């Protein structure tokens, strides 16, 4: 490992991609940018595995009879959920874009603990192998929620293997979050005060708090689940004096905040894209920054809204309902501020901005339908129906995956050093938007009409809507495969990108070469202006010259 501390690094155009070659230089790297790419390729693989299960489900649901046995269908939705939640959504933006961008954004040469960063990827892969092994061995049929006592007593599938996979991968999430917290606290460049941090970093800080505080709880919950499955001591079994609702409490104590692990990084990306393509400073910077923290804190107090019909006390339900409404406030603050940022800005329609538009619209629908579900009386009608499925897919797919794709496009020049074909990308963004809505909007209606989730069959009257959903899913699939193709092409053959192709603000664009060298900067960065200074407030140029 090089330990030179001399600045500037006197080299021609070396960057993190051409610094070293060979598989060892990737598998044993401690460079946060290379680790981000390791994550990028592995989560993309898991995304397509999880997507394959979704495709199988949608094909099955084209007719009430389906093509798979009901047992197989149970396994399909379980594996789809486990893989998408724990192996795609949770690590998606933090482990790839967050890993790549947080150090350059705050002016650091790497994350605080580079070796732990690499370790987190290996742990993630180990967890993934456990889970894929469970798939190969025949799958799991408990749903991604592993509810007891079905998972502890009655299921004959590989619950322990899959739970072990989730348990192990949780540590990778913890280590990533820990690394981010320390990095943001201790590694900021001179002049990078807390209120000059890009909102991307603020959101990731909030995400990291949840990862660090929430993930250990799911870990111990899965340990208890595994022990109970082996010893049958009855801790979650009502026949033996245990309480299955305790499992649900412990599970959702993590898994509801985990929803914010899955959406806050999406908000992080949107907060960067919107001001750049509006050519305008972000509206209400500190409100957006603090709303991320508010979401992280309030997010820990709302888990009981998953238990409205589980026999929870009605007074607890009322408190959880109220708190769930409150968590909508900081989310809405963000949406209003992004919109206000665009107001009177010079909005242009490059691909990242198209995804940002998609995010804002779909996240709003997903968020508002979340309020329906937080309302106790309405929730009783739609609990465990397709309404819930549609709601969280609007957040997770319409929100997070849109933001992820937007972010990948926005920072693709930074990561690869090349430009992607803009028109193809715009076309793909449109396809994703249309396909997504056609897939999931009918599911709102299905759920409202009473179609329960996780059923392998349904009433004839629902077929029309199911066919629409399946048709949408096939369009959505095309929308996901297209970027794979043209981005892979652009990685080798795209035009060479200038350092700052979007004319964006931020250390990673303005002071770090494209693609960045191993230590991100050619000379130590100094921050002399407020964040998102698109209107060009006076810069303290003298300060820069003095140092």
């Amino acid at each position, binding site marked *: 490992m090089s330990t030179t501390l001399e600045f500037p690094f006197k080299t021609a155009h070396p960057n993190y991609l051409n610094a070293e070659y060979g598989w060892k230089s990737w598998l044993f790297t401690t460079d946060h940018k290379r680790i981000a790419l390791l994550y990028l390729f592995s989560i993309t693989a898991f995304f397509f595995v999880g997507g394959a299960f979704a495709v199988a489900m949608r094909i099955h649901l084209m007719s009430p009879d389906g093509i798979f046995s009901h047992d197989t269908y149970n396994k399909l939705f379980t594996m789809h959920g486990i893989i998408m939640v724990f192996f795609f959504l949770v690590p998606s933006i933090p482990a790839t874009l967050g890993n790549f961008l947080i150090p350059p954004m705050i002016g650091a040469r790497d994350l605080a603990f580079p070796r732990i960063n690499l370790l987190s990827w290996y742990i993630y892969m180990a967890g993934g192998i456990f889970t894929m092994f469970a798939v190969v061995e025949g799958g799991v049929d408990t749903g991604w929620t592993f509810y007891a006592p079905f998972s502890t007593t009655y299921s004959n599938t590989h619950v322990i293997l899959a739970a072990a996979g989730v348990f192990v991968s949780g540590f990778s999430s913890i280590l990533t979050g820990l690394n981010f917290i320390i990095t943001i606290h*201790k590694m900021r460049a001179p002049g990078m005060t807390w209120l000059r941090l890009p909102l991307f970093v603020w959101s990731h800080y909030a995400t990291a708090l949840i990862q660090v505080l929430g993930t250990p709880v799911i870990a111990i919950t899965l340990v208890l689940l595994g022990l109970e499955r082996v010893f049958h001591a009855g801790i979650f079994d009502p026949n033996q*004096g245990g309480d299955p609702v305790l499992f649900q409490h412990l599970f959702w104590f993590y898994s509801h905040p985990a929803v914010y692990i899955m959406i806050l990084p999406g908000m992080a990306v949107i907060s960067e894209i919107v001001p750049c393509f509006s050519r305008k400073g972000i509206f209400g910077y500190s409100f957006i920054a603090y709303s991320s923290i508010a979401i992280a804190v309030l997010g820990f107090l709302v888990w009981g809204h998953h238990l409205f019909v589980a026999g929870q006390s009605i007074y607890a339900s009322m408190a959880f309902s109220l708190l769930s409404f409150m968590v909508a406030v900081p989310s809405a603050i963000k949406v209003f501020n992004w919109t206000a940022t665009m107001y009177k800005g010079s909005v242009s329609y490059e691909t990242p901005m198209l995804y940002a538009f998609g995010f804002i619209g779909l996240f709003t629908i997903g968020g508002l339908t979340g309020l329906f579900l937080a309302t106790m009386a309405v929730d009783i009608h739609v609990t465990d129906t397709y309404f819930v499925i549609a709601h969280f897919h609007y957040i997770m797919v319409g929100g997070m995956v849109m933001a992820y794709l937007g972010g990948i496009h926005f920072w693709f020049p930074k990561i690869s050093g090349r430009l992607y074909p803009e028109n193809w990308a715009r076309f793909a963004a449109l396809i994703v938007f249309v396909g997504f809505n056609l897939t999931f909007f009918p599911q709102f209606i299905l759920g409202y009409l009473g179609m329960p989730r996780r059923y392998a069959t349904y009433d004839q009257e629902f077929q029309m809507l199911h066919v629409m959903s399946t048709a949408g899913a096939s369009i959505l699939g095309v929308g996901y495969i297209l970027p794979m193709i043209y981005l892979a092409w652009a990685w080798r053959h795209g035009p060479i990108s200038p350092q700052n192709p979007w004319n964006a603000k931020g250390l990673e664009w303005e002071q770090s070469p494209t693609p960045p060298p191993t230590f991100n900067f050619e000379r130590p960065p100094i921050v002399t202006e407020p964040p998102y200074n698109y209107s060009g407030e006076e810069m303290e140029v003298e300060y820069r010259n003095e140092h």
Partner: protein
Amino acid sequence: MSISRTELLHEVAPDELKHHFDTPEQQFESSTLGMWVFLITEVMFFGGMFAGYTVYRNLYPKAFAAASESMNLVIGTANTAILIGSSFTMVLAVRSAQLGRKKALIGFLIFTLLLGCVFLSLKYVEYHEKWVDHHVPGPAFHFDQPQYARQAQILFFLYFAMTGMHALHMIVGAGLLLTLIFMAAKNRFSEHWFTPVEIVGLYWHFVDIVWIFLFPLLYLIGRT
């Protein structure tokens, strides 16, 4: 700031200051803050079991009291004293590291390790006792007061889960101590660089504190 780092460098062996840090202070603070954050995750990890304990003790106070009475109070008390003692020797080890006293450092680390091993051995004796008494949850579980048997089984389940997780942390801690002893023997530490001793110290104290909560909650609730 970028200039002052060169001045500070001479205080530290160059290979101990990693390339991405500016100053030894920054590196030291990052490592200790990292350990504190990790300990917070540990609090949440054990917290899940403490939450389960709270729920079931509220539901079944009498069964829990009855089951708690069958715990081996002598070994539990001895282990509490041993762990507090090991925390004391660990503090002395950290202090010796800060002062750069190599021999004292190695001595106190070995002492701490030995106390940890005594704790684990006594734990083994206790687990074996439970096995003989059929107090291990599962098909062979048996409890003398049949009206409490099922509920007592939950306490024993929690007992094994909680003390088992604690023992696992002790084993990891013993491994860390062993590593420190080797590092100290190879003269890796000095009064300018002793970060690993410091953060393993934090970890060791945390594991002790967990036991301080486990002991009364598992051993003492039946004895008023």
